[in-house]
């Protein structure tokens, strides 16, 4: 997650010269009591959750002694904020605050530069005081303009003797934002205590997803902006993306608790960010609720599309699978078709699937999908492929019709079908998988077929198909091999199987 908890961002502030209240995180009430005892005196107990109204909803409480701290922590650790269950609290020495400032470093997309937002009166309710917030431009190399900062402070009631300290603190905050590639870094309030110290009393920090790779020191598990803690399935999907950077792969689960009046939960597989959103809007407007949002685009490999489909369909209770992107893809669409066809066959899909595969290679793509899925001994669900001249509104209607015809049949995730010849026949490894060829059933005609459809990767030896290139060369050819497997199945010569296990899904049971 590319958001840091308050205590995590405060550790960064402290490390780079911005004072924070003394304290630390606790994940149990007993731990909170110990911390309070060590700190001595009154403490604040703060839920570590990514919400804006934490104080107003009881997520920040005060305690006079360790016993009270324990009680407060125990209360807070049972709270939920939206999709977040609280699993940690921050226990801090209480500050004696004399003045509060609001300081935030954020990205100004119009200026193509960072900006410091400064309000001379911090604290809660800052959102409603937008007019009084000063905007100070930040130069990506030189930081914030200290002169401008001093000019703003000059209009405040803050003791002039403290201006230098406030300026230094804000400069340090900007430097931390730059150093850690922050998308936003908000200190609310930056407190001036009665004894004249400048202390960051609260801190919220998000890191740019695309820069997380530069910061192995940060406690970020998955680089994603989500409105909930990452789910098990999201973690699995993230690992798949990290293992294969060919094309975009984005997966997020969406809230499914509010489906009153919905036609049902669906698995959603888009292609391209904008096309995905447009398609999501189309299928939502006919009454469905997305259980998840997945996007594979930018010329993804067949293996990646296959894994995406399997992850989408690892969610229980879906009434259908809806796939649609921009509809006029620049990339060749048959790679996606092979990936989908393989996934639908392996899990024996039993809910309707409608997939718009418009763009380059769309005729071939739709033929592949229909060929595999309409085979009588293949899968039971209706699977329909569409092309660029079929509008999203039309396919959304068609999808609704198919779901209605299926009369509310809901999906239960299935373990994948693995042919019997796997584990006991000819095989070779590829990246994150293994290719199996059933030599026992390779009659001469089948061998010829397999070799001809292997794109030069296989050759004939003793009338059997074997690897023609080095293992290193074949390792990244998963798209070609998935295509071969599907073509063999289409030709009723199912002697090839590309085993592409998904860590966490196939290797240790289902989700």
């Amino acid at each position, binding site marked *: 997650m590319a958001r840091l908890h308050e205590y995590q961002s405060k550790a960064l502030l402290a490390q780079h010269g911005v004072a924070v209240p003394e304290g630390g995180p606790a994940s149990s009430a007993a731990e909170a009591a110990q911390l309070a005892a060590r700190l001595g005196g009154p403490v604040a107990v703060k839920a570590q959750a990514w919400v804006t109204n934490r104080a107003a909803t009881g997520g920040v409480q005060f305690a006079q002694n360790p016993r009270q701290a324990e009680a407060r922590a125990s209360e807070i650790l049972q709270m939920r904020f939206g999709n977040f269950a609280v699993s940690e609290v921050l226990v801090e020495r209480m500050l004696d605050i004399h003045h509060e400032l609001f300081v935030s470093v954020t*990205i100004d997309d119009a200026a*193509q530069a960072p900006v410091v937002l400064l309000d001379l009166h911090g604290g809660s309710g800052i959102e409603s005081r937008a007019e009084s917030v000063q905007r100070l431009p930040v130069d990506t190399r030189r930081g914030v303009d200290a002169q401008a900062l001093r000019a703003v402070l000059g209009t405040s009631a803050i003791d002039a003797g403290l201006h230098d300290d406030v300026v230094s603190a804000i400069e340090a905050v900007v430097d931390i934002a730059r150093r850690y590639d922050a998308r936003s870094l908000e200190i609310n309030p930056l407190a001036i205590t009665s004894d004249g110290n400048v202390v960051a009393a609260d801190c919220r920090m998000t890191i740019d997803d695309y820069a997380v790779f530069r910061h192995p020191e940060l406690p970020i598990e998955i680089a994603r902006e989500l*409105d909930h803690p990452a789910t098990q399935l999201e973690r699995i999907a993230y690992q798949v993306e990290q293992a294969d950077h060919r094309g975009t792969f984005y997966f997020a689960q969406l809230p499914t608790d509010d489906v009153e009046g919905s036609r049902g939960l669906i698995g959603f597989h888009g292609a391209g960010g904008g096309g995905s959103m447009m398609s999501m809007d189309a299928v939502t407007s006919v009454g469905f609720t997305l259980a998840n*949002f997945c996007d594979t685009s930018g010329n993804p490999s067949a293996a990646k599309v296959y894994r995406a489909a399997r992850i989408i369909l690892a969610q229980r209770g879906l009434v259908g699978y809806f796939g649609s992107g921009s509809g*006029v893809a*620049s990339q060749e669409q048959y790679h996606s078709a092979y990936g989908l066809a393989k996934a639908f066959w392996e899990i024996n899909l039993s809910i309707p699937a409608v997939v718009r595969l418009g763009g*380059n290679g769309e005729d071939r793509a739709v033929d592949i999908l229909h060929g595999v899925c309409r085979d009588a001994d293949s899968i039971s669900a209706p699977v329909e492929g569409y092309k660029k001249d079929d509008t999203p509104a039309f396919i959304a209607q068609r999808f609704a019709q198919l779901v209605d015809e299926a009369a509310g049949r809901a999906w239960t995730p299935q373990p994948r079908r693995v042919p019997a010849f796997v584990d006991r026949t000819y095989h070779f490894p590829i990246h994150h998988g293994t290719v199996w060829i059933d030599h026992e059933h390779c009659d001469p005609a089948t061998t010829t077929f397999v070799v001809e459809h292997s794109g030069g990767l296989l050759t004939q030896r003793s009338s059997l198909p074997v690897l023609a290139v080095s293992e290193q060369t074949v390792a990244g050819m998963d798209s070609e091999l998935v295509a071969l497997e599907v073509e063999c199945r289409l030709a009723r010569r199912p002697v090839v199987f590309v085993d592409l296990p998904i860590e966490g899904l196939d290797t240790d049971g289902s989700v």
Partner: protein
Amino acid sequence: MAIIIDQSKRVLVQGITGREGQARTKLMRDYGTNVVAGCTPGKGGGEVEGVPVLDTVAEAIQAVGHVDISVVFVPGPRVETAATEAIEAGVKLLVLVPDRVPLWDTMRIAAAAREHGAAFVGPNTLGVLSPGRAVVGMIGGRAESAQQWFNEPIPRQTVGVVSRSGGMTSSLGYYLSRAGVGLSTLVHVGGDSVVGLPIPDVAEMFQHDPETDAIVLFGEIGGTQEERLAELIRSGRVTKPVIAYIGGAAATEGTRFSHAGAIIEHGRGTHAAKVQALRDAGAAVVDDFGLLPQTTLDILANRSAPAARSSSAR
């Protein structure tokens, strides 16, 4: 006329020896783009698709002369270095195709571009295509698809397309063409939060392009580009009709929807706010994407009929 790219522009490809660089150089040349050189550090001396390869941008310019546009195909984390090199070598327009460019890198590129009077499209852009003329980037995928999909300009019937989504750029171009609309230029501004040439800037370029009769927009949740376009319309700096669709009506706050820029943060950048801002300014915003071509045709017909001119979309 067209904006940003036509066949007269001299184009350099940075990262030309990479997988994408090679494939896209072929597409661009097949479509008519004047690719004059390529560069990849350490790979100078050879040729790709008949294009000479040099080690650096400066060497390329020395070898082949002036370069108008550099299109960059290097991995996201290396884009800043490549872009800065081109800007410092005097290239005035860059097209940054890769995704996963860190945000602060983009802002540093923007600062360098401002300093040197340069501009950039992207990052995370499919590029820019002027039908029948030239393409920079990868819109269309194959040259023959791009030729079939996108109409050339048609008098009094030509729109400029600007989009925050690459796929939707092609998609809009295709559906508008099929409906009989001509296209001056298709611009994918890029999917990130900070882009070099945002929608309002592109709209102003279309406003000044005599061949463009109207502007068709695919917008998305997040950021302020659509709101800023509404401001330009309101202030009279963009007076050509704007026909728009905004994606993300069903999006929830706080979750990023694939594109780095497609996230509603602190209640800003919502679908409703963008639609409202554009409608208040006088743009035609459709709720169903499928209605865009017909709405565009209707508005163009209204505009070219002299009697209806005063009561057009404005």
